[in-house]
C-alpha cells in the first residue's frame, strides 16, 4: 500500500504553513531528532514511533539525509511504528510455568508467593518473550508536495489522523488538516457571496420523507397553509435559496446566484 509499489490507498492532508527557504538542512535536522528508535526487549517501552527513510525503512542505523527525503518540491519520508505484540494468554501461561519451576527448584511454599513476586517474574518472562519475537511494524509513507500545500499519506485510521498528523506538525512546524470534502469546498475559489451560501448550507434531501409529504398534504388540506409541524419525523432544513420550479430556467443552471 506504500507510495512506491503496488496499488495506492491514501488520505490527502491539507498542509497550512510555509516551508523554510532552505528545507534540506532544516528538515534534515528535525527529522534526525524525531528519527525512529528501535525497541529494546530489556526496556519497558512497548512501542516506538518515528521517521525512517522511505527507501530503507528497516535500516535503523541509517541517518535520514536530504538526498533520501528531498526530491524537488517533494518531501518523502515514512512513519514507522513498532509495537510488541505478546499475547496475554501466552504471557500468563509462561509466567505460571516459571513460578512452578521456581517452587519446584527452591522448594518454596506457594502460599508465601506475593503479588510483587508474581509481577517480577512476569516482567522477566516478558523480556524473554520479547527477545524471542519480532515487534509488529507499521510503515506509512508520506509524500508532501510543498508547492501545492498537500500531503499524501499512504495509510488510514487513527494512526494516520492522530499520531502521524501530530508528528508531522511537530517535525515540519506546519498545521495539517485531514482533508475531507468539506475542507476542500472551503478552499475553492468561489467568491465571497458563494462562500456565504456555503457557510449556511445544510444537508439536501433528495427524497423528503413520504410521511412528511402526507402530513404536509393533510395539513394543507385542513388549514390551507403550506407549512406543517412534523410528527416524530425530522423536518429537512430549508435550502439556501430555493427557487420555484416555474421560475427556474436552464440559464439558472449556469449562472450561480453570486454571479448575478
Amino acid at each position, binding site marked *: 500500500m506504500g507510495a512506491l509499489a503496488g*496499488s495506492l490507498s491514501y488520505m490527502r492532508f491539507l498542509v497550512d504553513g510555509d516551508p523554510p527557504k532552505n528545507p534540506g538542512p532544516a528538515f534534515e535536522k528535525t527529522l534526525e531528532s524525531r528519527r525512529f528508535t528501535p525497541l529494546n526487549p530489556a526496556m519497558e517501552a512497548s512501542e516506538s514511533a518515528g521517521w525512517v527513510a522511505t527507501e530503507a525503512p528497516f535500516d535503523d542505523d541509517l541517518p535520514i539525509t536530504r538526498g533520501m527525503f528531498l*526530491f524537488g518540491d*517533494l518531501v518523502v519520508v515514512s512513519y514507522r511504528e513498532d509495537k510488541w505484540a505478546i499475547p496475554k494468554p501466552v504471557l500468563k501461561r509462561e509466567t505460571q510455568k516459571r513460578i512452578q519451576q521456581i517452587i519446584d527448584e527452591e522448594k518454596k511454599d506457594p502460599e508465601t508467593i506475593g503479588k510483587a513476586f508474581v509481577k517480577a517474574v512476569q516482567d522477566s518472562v516478558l523480556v524473554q518473550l520479547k527477545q524471542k519475537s519480532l515487534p509488529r511494524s507499521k510503515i506509512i509513507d508520506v509524500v508532501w508536495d510543498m508547492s501545492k500545500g498537500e500531503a499524501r499519506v499512504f495509510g488510514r485510521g487513527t494512526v494516520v489522523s492522530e499520531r502521524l498528523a501530530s508528528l508531522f506538525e511537530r517535525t515540519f512546524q506546519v498545521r495539517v488538516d485531514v482533508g475531507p470534502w468539506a475542507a476542500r469546498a*472551503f478552499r475553492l475559489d468561489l467568491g465571497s457571496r458563494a462562500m456565504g451560501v456555503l457557510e449556511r448550507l445544510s*444537508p*439536501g434531501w433528495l*427524497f423528503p420523507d413520504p410521511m412528511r409529504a402526507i402530513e404536509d398534504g393533510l395539513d394543507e388540506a385542513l388549514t390551507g397553509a403550506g407549512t406543517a409541524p412534523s410528527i416524530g419525523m425530522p423536518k429537512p432544513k430549508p*435550502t*439556501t435559496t430555493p427557487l420555484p420550479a416555474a421560475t427556474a430556467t436552464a440559464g439558472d443552471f449556469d449562472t450561480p*446566484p453570486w454571479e448575478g
Partner: protein
Amino acid sequence: MRPDDQDKSAPAPEAVRRVADKLFLGTEFITWLYFTIVEEGGSIDLGDALPEAMRPPPDDDGKCMVLMAIGKRAVLKTVDTGGARVTLAGAGLDDNGEILQAVRRGALIDTMSLDMSLGHRVYSFSLRADDGGVVGVKLPDLFSEPEDQDAATIRDPLLGPAPKKRRPKLPLEDILALRMQCLDELEAVIDALFARFITRRLARAWHTEDVAGIRKVVARGLKARLVEA
C-alpha cells in the same frame, strides 16, 4: 440539568466547526457523481477545468472527454442514526435497482469504486466520503507505450500468452515522479468534478435541475423494474 453537568471544555476552533458542519458534502458529492456518470453515459466533458497538460486528446467534436464508469463496489450509508452501511458488490452497479431503491429511501453513497480513462491511461480507484480518501488506486501501465498494448491484443492465440515484459529498474526518484504524476492527474479530475458539484450545489437551480434529474432517474429505473416484474 445539574449545575455540574455543564460542558466546560473549550469550544472547537471556528474553522474546525465550520468543516464539521459540512461533512455531508462528501456523501452528497459521491451520490451526485454516481447519477452524473449514469446520466451522461460515462462521458464527462470537463472542458477547461483540467490543466492543459492533463487534458485528454479532443474527440471528433473537439471536446476533451473524460470517460468514467461505475466500478464493482458501492457502500451506501443509511439515514438512520445508527449509521448502518450497506455494501453492494458485483458488476452492473450503474443500473442497479438496489441502489435506486436505497436512494429513494434516503440513503446516500458513502464509498464508490470507479474506473476512469484519460486518453489511453486507465485508472481504477474508490472514493470515500468520510475522509476524502482515495483507496485502491490502480495506476495505468507506466512502462509500455500505447502501440505495445495494441500489438498485444492482436497476438495469435495459438502462440500462447505473450511473454511478460520485464519492467526496467528505475531509480527511486523516477518511480516516485511517475507515480505521483499519475496521482496528480487523477486528483485533477476528481477536484474538477468536485468543484463542478459545489458550483451546482450552491446554485439556485440545484433543486430544480440536479435533484429533479436524480429523482427522474430513480423513478424511471424503479418503474422499469416494476414493469419487468
